[in-house]
């Protein structure tokens, strides 16, 4: 067996036509399978759990959750940060790896970008619904109003609004622009009139002329340039929600880089979690090859180590600061009532990913799948630990408390996964999940080293 980095990005034997056929057929010809219907049904049911939970929340108030006086933020913020983190991989793969000319990104970028959008959609719900009066949440936006009130520009939550909304906009734009040539392909290949019209409208009159291609590539590159700093900024800003505060466990300068690394870590884990079954089900092993999986595992390993370093620095700074509050915070994480989730976090995020040093593990697809899920759990636990354990015991022992999630906390969390999967199922069904035109570039005939 060859080493992964020598492995091809596309299996031998493919031509322009086969690539186009294979990917377009998933949308146009494969039809609705029983498996898809079943999966969509489950996902949509979960999504309805979210709808129900949010409706009850708006009706009744935040008191249906487990949050309380020392712990003002609970699952909502944990989920928000977790989903935003997951939403990092897509843009990183599309934009940064594009700029770095990492060709292996091609077969996974469309998929990862879609995942980004869906994750950001899930993330976006939580800040909206977690406020006490969601019907006036729009007051966070700076708009001219009769109250003559600006929002508080010093507040990290306001920075969040800008960071996340910008990120969502640019990601959506980037994704859509990347879709245009493929939408035109689908338009051209569709046999049903209605489908032709729908794809035709979405393709914005793409003809594939040289001029189109020239302008398209310039725009795509510019958008990639624009998206790149956002990958770094969005989670840095999210980390400011914590770092700017005075609470031990939150007030830490290490947070921005450590959050970004954690985001990429969890983002790649989620891409792996989704890619591995889908490439199997839709027979895309030719396009998403061992090399992709191997590369993603390596990125996970690297970012996981950065996250581990972050944990270490957190503990070191607590000791080095000499602040009894910071020292207590670390001690409380290790030995307090939330010691089990903390141990789980260390296990999931630091100990277990170390097996990825081994090439055999990285090429063992079931094992990789399991590890990717473990990392997802670990990163969720990390956000839980940061949000909850810092708040539940801060400065005055008289005010210490505990946070126990309620059934509604869990329902909302599960429901957000439902929303994510629902969108994902729809995406797989109606849009090409792999970039057709970019894959065509990878066909050996087009590559210089293979030129006759």
């Amino acid at each position, binding site marked *: 067996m060859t080493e992964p980095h020598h492995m091809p990005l596309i299996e031998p034997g493919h031509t322009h036509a086969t690539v186009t056929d294979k990917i377009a057929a998933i949308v146009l010809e494969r039809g609705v399978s029983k498996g898809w219907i079943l999966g969509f049904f489950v996902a949509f049911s979960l999504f309805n759990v979210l709808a129900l939970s949010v409706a009850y929340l708006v009706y009744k108030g935040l008191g249906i959750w487990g949050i309380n006086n020392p712990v003002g933020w609970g699952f909502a913020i944990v989920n928000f940060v977790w989903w935003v983190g997951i939403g990092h991989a897509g843009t990183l793969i599309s934009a940064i790896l594009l700029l770095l000319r990492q060709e292996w990104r091609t077969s996974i970028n469309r998929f990862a970008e879609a995942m980004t959008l869906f994750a950001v959609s899930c993330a976006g719900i939580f800040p909206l619904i977690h406020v006490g009066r969601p019907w006036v949440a729009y007051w966070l936006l700076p708009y001219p109003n009769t109250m003559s009130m600006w929002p508080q520009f010093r507040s990290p*939550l306001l920075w969040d609004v800008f960071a996340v909304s910008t990120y969502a906009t640019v990601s959506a734009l980037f994704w859509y622009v990347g879709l245009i040539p493929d939408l035109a392909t689908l338009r051209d290949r569709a046999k049903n009139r209605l489908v032709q019209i729908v794809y035709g409208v979405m393709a914005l009159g793409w003809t594939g002329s040289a001029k189109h291609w020239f302008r398209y590539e310039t725009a795509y590159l510019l958008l990639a340039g624009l998206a790149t700093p956002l990958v770094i900024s969005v989670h840095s800003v999210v980390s400011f929600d914590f770092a700017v505060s005075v609470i031990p466990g939150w007030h830490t300068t290490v947070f921005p880089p450590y959050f970004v690394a954690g985001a990429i870590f969890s983002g790649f884990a989620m891409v792996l979690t989704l890619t591995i079954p889908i490439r199997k089900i839709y027979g895309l092993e030719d396009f998403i090859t061992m090399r992709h999986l191997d590369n993603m595992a390596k990125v996970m390993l690297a970012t996981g180590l950065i996250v581990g370093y972050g944990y270490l620095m957190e503990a070191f700074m607590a000791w080095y600061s000499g602040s009894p509050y910071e020292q207590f915070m670390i001690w409380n994480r290790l030995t307090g009532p939330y010691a089990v989730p903390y141990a789980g976090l260390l296990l999931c995020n630091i100990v277990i990913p170390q097996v990825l040093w081994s090439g055999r593990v990285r090429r063992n697809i079931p094992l990789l799948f399991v590890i990717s899920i473990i990392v997802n759990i670990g990163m969720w636990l990390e956000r839980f630990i940061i949000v909850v354990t810092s708040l539940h015991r801060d400065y005055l*022992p008289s005010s210490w408390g505990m946070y126990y999630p309620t059934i509604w906390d869990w329902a909302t969390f599960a429901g957000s996964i439902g929303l994510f999967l629902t969108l994902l199922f729809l995406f797989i069904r109606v849009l090409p999940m792999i970039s057709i035109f970019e894959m065509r570039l990878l066909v050996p005939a087009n590559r210089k080293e293979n030129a006759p």
Partner: protein
Amino acid sequence: MSPVNPQWRSLEERADTPQFRQLFEREFPEGATEWFDPVSRRDFLRLMGASLALAGLGACTRQPEEKIYPYAAHPPEQIVPGKPLFYATAMEDGGYGFGLLVESHEGRPTKIEGNPQHPGSLGAADHFAQASILTMYDPERSQVVSNAGQISTWENFAAALAWQLASPNVALRILTGTVTSPTLASVIAEVLQKFPAARWVQYEPVNQDNIYAGVQLAFGRPVETIYRFDRAEVVVSLDTDFLSTGPGRLRYTRDFTANRRVRGAAVKMNRLYVAESTPSLTGAMADHRLAVRPSEVEKIARQLLAGEGVWAKDLQAHAGRSVVVAGEWQPPVVHALAHAINAKLGNIGQTVFYTEPVTVNAGGQVAALRELVGEMQAGKVEVLLIVGGNPVFDAPADLNFLDALKKVKWRAHLGLYDDETSEWCQWHVPAAHFLETWGDVRAFDGTATIQQPLIAPLYGGKSATEFLSAALGLPGRPAHEMVRAHWKAHGLESEAAWQVAVHDGVVPGTAAKEWSIENRGSRIDTAKLSPPSLLQPPASTGLEILLRPDPTIGDGRWANNGWLQELPKPFTRLTWDNAALLSPRTAEQLGLRTEQVVELGVDGRAVQLPVWVLPGQADDCVTVHFGYGRRRAGRVGNQAGVDVFRLRTSAAWWQATGATLRATGRKAVLACTQHHQLMEGRELVRVGTLEEYQRDPEFVKHRVPEPPGGSLYPPHPYEGAAWGMVIDLNACTGCNACVVACQSENNIPVVGKDQVLVGREMHWIRVDRYFAGDPAAPLVYHQPVPCMHCENAPCEPVCPVAATSHSAEGLNEMTYNRCVGTRYCANNCPYKVRRFNFLQYADQRTESLKLMRNPNVTVRMRGVMEKCTYCVQRINAARITAKKENRQVRDGEVVTACQATCPAQAIIFGDLNDPLSNVSRWRAEKLNYGLLVELNTAPRTTYLAKLRNPATEI
């Protein structure tokens, strides 16, 4: 309707029975729904009209004019809408009066304050008085006269009573609580005169029988004992909680803490020795505290009398400037010993005074009740009038009061609630709340107050005097007439004198006459106190059980008061429940842990209740608080806690030996507001000894490194006032009055046990309690924590919509309208003083509660954050007045609700920009420190460190 009426609509009409006539004449059939509405809009208008009429506006009413007089130097000629008026009155608790000033907005009483002219208040009010306003507006008060469960009328009741009392020799019994009211006493005397066979019994579950028996033992007659703690340099407390129980508690707190204020070089401070069984506020203030079993106190008293031990030496060194106080829970002999010690030390006439009893027929209540129950059992009582009180619930278990009650032929109950007692009486008459009627009551020193009504009775309630007038055949005689008549004959002949007395809230010259005690002290026959016959049997080795009134709901009379149910108990920080308190060591020996349910048995009776392990509790003692476990208290009080009156017998009145504890294997869930008891080595409550302070007055400042100061943001300029607060931890007793005062002033909702369990109580000021030192003999610190109004407030910059902002006077303001509820501010508050409306906590539906609210404070909806505002509405009111008079706000003009009610005067508020203001002076003290200043929050609220004054020999 004439019987010859040829047309008839029904057979009933044709039959023309009296029932049908009654039905026909009534506009609504009996039980029509209108009465059950707490206060309908129509009622409201009627009440408003009535109260305006009372205030002298002259509505069209046939009622005789009964003028009430606002408490002001220049009373306004008419009501100015939006400007509250204050009226002096008094609350009766345990029979004694506590002087109050009640704030009234357009005829609605909204807030209770203490009456500064009243000797038992001096401007302070405790949590009961503060919460009494909620009881008045309680929609679950009984609202109609009822007969055997059916709605009836006062007139019907009066007629039925008159019929029962047709013969002058009827065996009538009157059962009241402790009575100090001169008017009520005179009305009762009238009744007793009219019915020679009638008898009057007083019974109060928390009474002063032991105190009176003690003086009886010492002096041969019951007299009232009054202490002057302001003159005492050494105080010895023998199992008494004089700071929080008893009729003199507010005055004693003021006097006692006055001697603990250390300012600058004035380092005089009293020293308090306490021997007690269960932690009390007095014990928490002690410089030396012994946790002993109740039966061991007598030995300590004897040692003091004999002059043995360090305590006795300290007392002797301060002869004439010391005082020994025995608690109401202690047997008479301990009281007698305490009087003997005081006499021996020459304290009588210096720190201890005796006066004629303030109560009518002082003492002996349990014995009197036992006698009454005996008569009832024997069927010798024909008519029983229960005037207030709830004996079916709170009478000693061995008397079987309920059984005896059922044997009384005709029984009627006057009460605020349709309670356990009214359930078993044929007639129930709703009582008027003290804010609704005329009356009078005497304070601990005998000073009388004329109670004036602030509002017409919400539900047509009757005062005790009116109720008993029905027995005289005068059911229509108004309380005002009786009170006025009594005082016309007792020193307030002229209208002017009456007006002054009503206005001031004190009747001049009514303090009880001092009982001349010239050399009486030496006459105490100490030999008489020593015979073994008077000695209790030697303390057995078994468990002792202590029965005490609950610190927040009293003997159960406050059970339906949400403010008091949700007020954390000073030591356990429990709400909504009672528990069996055990010392850590005893709990360990018995293998019990907090919240485990045990079966507590004594003398063949048993109840099941959860255990609470409390440091400072004496070993081998289990303390239970009665008042809980009400069945018919109302929606608030029902189902809360466990009834331990079932363990209380007339023999085991305050305590008993030989209790048994057995684990049941079940666990209860108790709602505690403070889960962590230690300071974790943090300098939160800074404590030193007096000696330490004398050596280094700045010792407090050396405890924590000074903060670096400065901020990234420019400093706020304060051109006008800069409001600030200082809390003297050395004076604070942890009594919780401030918490309820704040709740009342600021419309703070009650959230219920379920919400307290998840940590969502809403109090804007809380009293943190920390234990320090050895768990067997801990030091206890109380620390009130309101908002700190930080200069560099961490909450302000994090709010994304600028709903919390810094005012030009340095207040950290909360704009509810703007708040979207991100809760970021609460997370970022190091003091955790912010409170969030997780659900719709404020009751927006109950009409009567709407009347109670402070109209100057927004009622918050769900989803918004709230917190202490430094009573910004009071600041604004003072500023408006000052602006109209074209001057600055004067020092002392703005008094926050917590400050106003504090019996210890531990809180001062004012302008920090004014160097001469009291708050500036307190802040300049060497003991001043800020909580968590090391975070550079620069709090506006600061503390004066706590000092202890232990004797050097111990």
